[in-house]
């Protein structure tokens, strides 16, 4: 299982990065690059859709934390979509639910941006 990264622009200045597969030490550099490229292109409001992610490790979490930090430094934000209980548990046990806004649907995440 590898990682698929698909990015859409639902509206001006906003991007939704949909991930599917495994976000780990091998694949996370691709996620980081996608986030950095979007931010460098002036898109500072990001939604990362984890709905299709079957595996997420500390490297993937680190990339998301870095993306959130970089987005906020540019007056933007990074919100997450996740309804997978296994993945949500990883955010909970690491205390990251206090840092990330995690939504159940894209419409809800976009509304909060």
């Amino acid at each position, binding site marked *: 299982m590898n990682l698929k990264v698909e990015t859409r622009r639902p509206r001006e200045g906003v991007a939704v990065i949909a991930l599917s597969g495994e976000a*780990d*030490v*091998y694949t996370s550099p691709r996620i980081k690059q996608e986030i950095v490229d979007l931010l460098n292109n002036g898109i500072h409001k990001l939604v990362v859709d984890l709905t299709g992610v079957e*595996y997420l*490790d*500390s490297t993937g979490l680190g990339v998301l934390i870095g993306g959130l930090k970089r987005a906020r430094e540019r007056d933007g934000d990074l919100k997450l979509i996740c309804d997978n209980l296994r993945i949500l548990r990883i955010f909970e046990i*690491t205390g990251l639910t206090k840092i990330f806004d995690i939504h159940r649907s894209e419409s809800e995440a976009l509304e909060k941006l």
Partner: protein
Amino acid sequence: MPETKPLAEVELSIPSRPEYVGVARLAILGVASRMRFSYDEVEDIRLAVGEACTRSIDRLNGGTAEAHTIRLRCLIDANRLTIEVRNPLLKSPPKEPSPDPTSLPEGDLSGVLIRILMDEVDTEERPEEGVHLLRMVKYVAR
């Protein structure tokens, strides 16, 4: 350390490269699935092993392209699974060594995950063998 001989042992060696961590995860998934662990417990073990291998890669490679060998040893008992992750004890310490997962330094997500997901975790350096060892134990719920 198990006090008696385990019922079975499974060993695997992988290069210390990110693309091989998934191989270790698949192998441990196979081992844990054959024991009386729940689905969630098997997933916990899989994630902990992935994190342990990632720590080994960080520790060994230290930003260099040189690949070392990470050895995993699974000791299967009726009531527990012990996983040992061994890698070479480098002569010169890495630039930024991974923190000890038995402590809880801020920002050490990998260490936090391993500690929470597994029932017992300890590390050991064996200079006489030239080995750094991370040992994790998961008990089968009664």
